[in-house]
């Protein structure tokens, strides 16, 4: 007991006597620690953030499917929503499970506007005003002016449809063959061939008296044999191939040979200086993937709500006040379709039976996920659309139970997900479903995270190694410097073991102090980085995303026990181990040798 107290007092006094040296040593160790702790925290933070990004953006921590669904992605591989949800939500680790139905379809927007239809002759600048493309030489092609082209995103090959569709054989659609300079007066111009314009302007033919209803098959009259009539010959003519995308079947009609038409002869089209106003429709459409979700449950599992950049997320009710269902689209898609929140789109959705059903939907809002392909081709609708008998009708044919393709589950502790997945699997065995952790659903992402973690581990190892080296350096020096001192102590009778213990204790004390100082400093830095984060956005281009996972340019630490415990433990271990060698040396030194040393 006495020995111990003596040891303690001596150790302290030694350290105190050599304040400077001790302080320097402590300083070195603390600095190392103070840097390692936030580094570990930062690494953990970035990793957590990455996982969070992956799981909270769409995947969820665990997913439930029909066993073959992910491989084949067929509509029929669905399962009953209610039973599955009940089974899953019964587990205490589950916060929420979001049901989803996946299908494909098309969305299209129609924009109607006025154009002044004329010939190239009537346009200011004439042939010189052609900016790109070529003259409308083929049937049902046209030039459009720059401003209109820009406004309605028209390009070479774009199609405009007349509205209403012309009654008589005339171009129903025109294909843009070129772009001309805009009329400074600001009018929207569509320049076509004189012949096509004549057709459009032709007054409607008097309807022949008894116009049979083609729907009544029996009432159709037989064709006269070897009829010279319009029906037979032109249809065979390969001339129809001349305008590949032009109005359908116009070529079959006898519009070209004028005699039959009572309209004024198109003999002098070029002289017609005036333009006629028509309304045209620009249809923009896109094939999309459609995900039907339950908005309230979905927003508890994923962060898609936060990604809405215009308008709002989906409503909890299926149809709005006017009975129109809502749709959430990506901002890129909105740009392609030229729509904004509140606009209407035509939605063609693939049903359980395999044919498309259509519905007008209203754009609730636009999202930006960070991944271009997602923003261009993914849309979200209310889950009820999938169960709507008028639309997808994804219910069990026998029981009528509403079906889904996927449950995305959010659990309390994201690191537990593999274990929880196994548990849920057991619960769902009766339903013949599988519960997979996200790592199994998206192995590519999982390996990316693993690679990231691996390189982080290597990095941390290097950092710790360097810090440990510094510590070692310091400790060794601080002991070896005083070899002489210890020699003196021994020469006055101090036992070797005592000397060793003395050194170890000194080391321990310095280590403890460093731990406190370094720990506090480390905590301080970590906290700062936790609150304010390391803002990398000036170095990174705006928001970095990988495969739809947006990585926050602000790096934050995670204040966890681990980020403290590990660096502290490692440092202490290193310093204590490092102290052994000098302690042993000092213990064994012969007093005579020590005294011979000429100090440092």
């Amino acid at each position, binding site marked *: 007991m006495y020995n111990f107290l003596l040891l303690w007092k001596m150790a302290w006094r030694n350290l105190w006597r050599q304040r400077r040296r001790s302080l320097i040593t402590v300083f070195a160790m603390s600095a190392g620690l103070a840097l390692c702790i936030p580094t570990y925290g930062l690494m953990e933070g970035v990793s957590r953030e990455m996982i969070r990004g992956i799981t909270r953006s769409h995947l969820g921590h665990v997913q439930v499917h029909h066993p073959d669904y992910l491989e084949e992605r067929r509509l029929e591989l669905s399962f009953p929503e209610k039973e599955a949800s009940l089974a899953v939500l019964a587990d205490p680790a589950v916060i929420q499970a979001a049901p989803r139905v996946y299908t494909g379809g098309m969305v299209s927007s129609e924009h109607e506007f006025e154009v002044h239809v004329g010939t190239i002759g009537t346009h200011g600048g004439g042939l010189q005003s052609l900016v790109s493309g070529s003259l409308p030489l083929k049937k049902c092609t046209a030039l459009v002016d720059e401003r209109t082209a820009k406004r309605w995103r028209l390009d070479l090959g774009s199609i405009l449809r007349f509205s209403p569709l012309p009654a008589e054989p005339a171009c129903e659609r025109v294909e843009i063959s070129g772009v001309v300079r805009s009329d400074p007066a600001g009018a929207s111009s569509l320049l076509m061939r004189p012949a096509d314009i004549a057709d459009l302007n032709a007054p409607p033919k008097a309807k022949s008296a008894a116009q049979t209803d083609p729907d009544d098959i029996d009432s159709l009259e037989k064709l006269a044999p070897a009829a010279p009539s319009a029906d037979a010959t032109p249809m065979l003519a390969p001339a129809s191939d001349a305008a590949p995308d032009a109005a359908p079947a116009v070529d079959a009609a006898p519009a070209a040979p004028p005699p039959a038409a009572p309209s004024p002869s198109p003999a002098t089209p070029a002289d017609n200086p005036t333009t006629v106003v028509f309304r045209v429709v620009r249809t923009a459409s896109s094939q999309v993937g459609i995900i039907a979700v339950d908005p309230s449950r979905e927003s508890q599992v994923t962060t898609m709500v936060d990604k809405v950049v215009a308008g709002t997320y989906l409503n909890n009710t299926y149809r709005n006040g006017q009975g129109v269902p809502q749709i959430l689209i990506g901002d890129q898609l909105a740009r392609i379709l030229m729509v904004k929140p509140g606009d209407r789109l035509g939605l063609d959705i693939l049903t359980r039976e395999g044919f498309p059903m259509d519905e007008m939907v209203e754009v609730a809002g636009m999202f930006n996920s960070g991944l271009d392909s997602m923003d261009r081709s993914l849309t979200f609708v209310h889950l009820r659309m999938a169960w709507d008998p008028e639309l997808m009708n994804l219910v069990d044919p026998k029981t009528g139970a509403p079906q889904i393709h996927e449950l995305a589950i959010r659990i309390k502790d994201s690191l537990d997900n593999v274990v929880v997945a196994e548990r849920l699997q057991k619960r769902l065995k009766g339903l013949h479903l599988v519960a997979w952790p996200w790592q199994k659903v998206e192995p590519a992402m999982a390996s990316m995270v693993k*690679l990231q973690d691996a*390189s982080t581990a290597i990095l941390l190892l290097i950092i710790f190694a360097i810090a440990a080296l*510094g510590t070692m350096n310091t400790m060794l020096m601080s002991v070896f410097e005083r070899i002489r001192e210890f020699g003196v102590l021994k020469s006055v009778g101090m036992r070797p073991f005592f000397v060793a213990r003395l050194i170890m204790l000194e080391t321990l004390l310095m280590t403890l102090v460093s731990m406190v100082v370094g720990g506090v400093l480390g905590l301080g830095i970590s906290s700062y980085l936790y609150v304010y984060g390391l803002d990398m956005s000036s170095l990174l281009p705006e928001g970095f995303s990988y495969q739809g996972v947006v990585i926050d340019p602000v790096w934050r630490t995670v204040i966890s026990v681990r980020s403290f415990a590990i660096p502290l433990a490692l440092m202490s271990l290193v310093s204590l181990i490092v102290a052994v060698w000098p302690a042993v040396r000092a213990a064994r030194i012969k007093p005579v040798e020590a005294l011979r040393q000429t100090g440092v």
Partner: protein
Amino acid sequence: MLLLKMAFRNLWRRRFRTGITLFAIGSSFALLLFFVGLTEGSHELMIDLAIRMQAGHVIVQAPEFQKERALELRVTHPEKVLERIGPLPEGWVVTQRIFTTGLLRSADGSVMLDNLMAVDLENEKKISDVPRKIVRGAWLTSGEPGILIGEKAARLLKVDVGDKVVLSCSGLSQKVEERFVVAGVFRIGGDSDRGTAMIGLARGQVLLGMGGAISQLAFFMPSETSRDAARMLSAKLADLPVAVLHWEEALPVLTQLLWVDDVSMQVFIFIILGIVAAGIMNTVLMSVMERTRELGILKSLGMRPSSIFRLIMTESTMLGLLAVVVGAAVGLPLVYYFARVGIDPMALTGGEVMEMEGIAFTDRIHPVLRWGSGLTLSGIIIVMTVLSALWPAFRAMRILPVKALRQM
């Protein structure tokens, strides 16, 4: 110089401490070298794999092609381009490609090909990754109407080498259909095994009605010369209606990823330097303090403060230089060894294959250390050492002889 001799002798006198310090700083440096080498090596790998599939070190294509891959956006006279460039420099390879889409059908089903390529068989073989990744069959020969398809596509179509398939695609002016025979099946990894297919360039041109036109010329060269090459090609082809892109412009996603990685690497180097600096400062400070008496004597003997300052600084600088040498001696062989052997990325990811943009990274990573990086790092360490020594040296300068002598 006297100062140098004194500095060296001081270091030598306390060999032990010098040794330990050298070991500490040197190892840190070695580890840093390894880490940088590893990062650079993995970047090289990613770049290499990515550009070989879809681009080149420098590519020449129609100006809007980068935004939209339409068949009409083509290079109508590739021979003019080549003519303008003249004879290719040593080590360069150029290949020509057409990119389009199509539908591939068999008696059992159909597959949408979102990346149908018609390639210059001879040159593409030299640079493409596909020949190595062919699991059944072989590379295309110019005789047969052969097509290379991915493993997933082969599975979906239920075909194998030698079976026939029908390819439908939109040519420049009309839709076309032609029968092909599966010449080989490849496994690149990822979605490419389903949507990517290759046919011969000549056949592709005929099929699509392209005449002599192509979508892209891809140039491959030693990677360090790529930037200069891009500039040079840009200049030579300035008056032709083509765009010359360096791979960084052609593959923005990859570039971004690498950029982020570089940035994080710099952050960590910064942290490491902080730690090293603390250690050095500590060492030098200690050494100064130990020698207070000695330095006091020197001063009392007439040595000027500035000389003492320079002495300490010299010692530190030498320490830094020696540490760099030691570190290099350890680190370079380490990097070199792994550069030869390579590191299996699967070992790092625990057996999973990492994928990015449809390309699987299964090749070994070879750490790469450029002279530039190595010298920069050395320089930084030395500078760090010197800077950390400033304060202790300053302190040393101000030792009062009287106080010093009074010390034990």
